[in-house]
């Protein structure tokens, strides 16, 4: 039987999630022995025609051309997995969704008329069906290997959808909210990083996006209790997963707080 083909695609992003694949230093060559890398421009100039068994998609959709391109990628892919916050929730560039993109354009470029861009940055799932979404800004290396391994043997990836709080307990971290009064998005944030920030004496800043059953109202209350203003809460909600519904809701709670 031929080895399954793996394709890696990039849309608007920093390259960090596909770099995570190249950062699997101990596993990369073994993986390359199990799959045929058919399209991975960051790593190879050889491009094989589709269809592809597994496509990993990094980045968000921010141009009309990319909105078309992702449809072709979907048609060419048996299984399509988004990797990272950009592909899964629109990324930090989705901050434009809450601003005036025309004004953004004129701030950055001397001749804004030459820039073609959509007014929004949207996740891949807003455009095509997605078979699995792997979270993180960037994705976690072990989780990425787990997803690829699971797909190769035809099982469901074992990616827990509980909160970072669980990981703090597993790791034996002291709770930075209780012990130090730190502002922490851990209660609403999807596990996967291994509770890195609390292990480094800082609150989680939500780069893995929302967990499966979040409570943004309660999260806002926790943040207020640490002394955060509503503006601060809004900024905390508006970073790398700004367009994820939970974070939009957290931002709304803060906006209502400001109005009242």
């Amino acid at each position, binding site marked *: 039987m031929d080895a399954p083909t793996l394709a890696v695609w990039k*849309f*608007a*992003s*920093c*390259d*960090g999630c*596909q*770099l*995570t694949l*190249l*950062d699997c*230093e*101990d596993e*990369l*060559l073994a993986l*390359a022995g199990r799959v045929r*890398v058919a399209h*991975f*421009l*960051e*790593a*190879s*100039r*050889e*491009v094989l025609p589709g269809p592809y068994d597994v496509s990993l998609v990094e980045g968000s959709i*921010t*141009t009309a051309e990319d909105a078309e391109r992702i449809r072709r990628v979907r048609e060419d892919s048996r299984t399509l997995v988004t990797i990272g916050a950009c592909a899964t929730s629109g*990324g*930090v560039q989705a*901050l*434009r969704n809450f*601003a005036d*993109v025309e*004004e*953004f354009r004129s*701030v*950055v*470029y*001397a*001749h804004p008329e*030459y*820039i*073609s*861009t959509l007014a929004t*940055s949207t996740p891949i799932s807003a455009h095509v069906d997605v078979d699995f979404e792997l979270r993180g*800004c*960037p994705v976690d*290396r072990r989780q990425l290997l787990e997803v690829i391994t699971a797909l190769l043997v035809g099982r469901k990836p074992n990616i827990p959808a509980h909160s970072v709080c669980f990981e703090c307990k597993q790791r034996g971290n002291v709770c930075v909210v209780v012990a130090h009064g730190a502002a922490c998005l851990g209660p609403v944030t999807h596990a996967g*990083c291994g509770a*890195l*920030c609390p*292990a*480094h*004496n*800082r609150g989680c*800043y939500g780069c893995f996006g929302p967990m499966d059953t979040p409570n943004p109202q309660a999260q806002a209350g926790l943040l207020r209790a640490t002394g955060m203003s509503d503006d*601060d809460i809004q*900024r905390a909600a508006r*970073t*790398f997963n700004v367009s994820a519904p939970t974070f939009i809701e957290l931002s709304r709670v803060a906006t209502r707080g400001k109005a009242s």
Partner: protein
Amino acid sequence: MTHRPDRTLDVRALARVEGEGAMHVRVRAGAVEQVRLEIYEPPRFFEAFLRGRRYTEPPDITARICGICPVAYQMSACAAIEDACGVQVDGAVADLRRLLYCGEWIESHVLHIYLLHAPDFLGYPSAIDMAKDHRDVVERGLALKKVGNEIMEVVGGRAIHPINVRIGGFYRAPSRQQMTALAAKLRVALDQALDTARWVAGFEFPDFHHDHEMLALSEPGRYAIERGSVVTTGGLAFPVTAFEEHVIEEHIEHSTALHAHLAGRGRYLTGPAARYTLNRAWLSPLARQVADDIGLGERCDNPYRSILVRAVEVVYAVEEALRLIDEYEPPAVPYVDVQPRAATGYGATEAPRGTLFHRYALDADGLITSARIVPPTSQNQASIEEDLRRFVADRLHLSDHQLTHDCEQAIRNYDPCISCATHFLDLTVDRS
């Protein structure tokens, strides 16, 4: 076929570069009419959405400009904001920053040497294909790259988008034990780095030289990484605060990128070759000896030989990391307190690909009112295109296929990081 006077070459998606780029070459009547390095990485508007953010946020936010060199963005952001707030970070905390940066240089340079650049010299489409014939070599590269990432994890908390960096320093200082374990790995890595330099020295380098002015940060007494003032091979010298007086970014109609040039002087080049040429004297004795042994000489003006400079810089970064770890005592407090004030601050550091400049204006509450970021690839764009123009003119006898291949390699000499293009343009390209 190969001697027709009019031809157009398009490489629609450059491989083995970071980000998305394309190349367009137009030949008319046997002469090169136009060469463009197209950047179609969509704009992400970092400079626009940084406005209104707190002064504490740019290290986390600007890291996301580039997954390959996030530390460079974090360090330039810290430098600029601390400058605005009138704070200088010294001692053990500054040393930790340099150590973290050494990790990024190792990780990024080894990625480029082994996975992106070497396959060109040895005739493989990728390092994975190269490993079929040279498994030991590729494994050595991956092991060396991993040590760079481990420095990033121990000091920065994560290899990509480190979480431990804050304005003023770090959230948590690594323990002595963590550093001791790291040092043991770095001693092995030093041999791997020396082997890497000897390996790349055996490659064949086309005879190609440029005359670009070269620009880098420089710091008397040591090889500039995380701080310094600006110097050029043309004798220009100015502090980072004067960067925008000297570096002009021009938005040329029908061009796809903002072309940076030096005011009143023209195009220039930043990056490893510039650093080596300007700061060779400040390399460690071992790194300088390696440079001599592999025949680098006093300056590097052949872009193909930039792989040699990267190898020398890896030797230096491994050695420097070992020195910093050897002298390391965990600081009692791993950061300096930084209070905001209404001011403008400037910061520049040496990203693996060259000088990375940040400028922020803050209001009295510590909110950012304006931000400007000038990454290395936008500074190098004009020089890369100039090199391609000359390069193509000398190779018009080649087939389209071969010329395209050779041009791609020429671009990869510069390790362009297109994701870093905070303000490259996204133009519709006429491919007719």
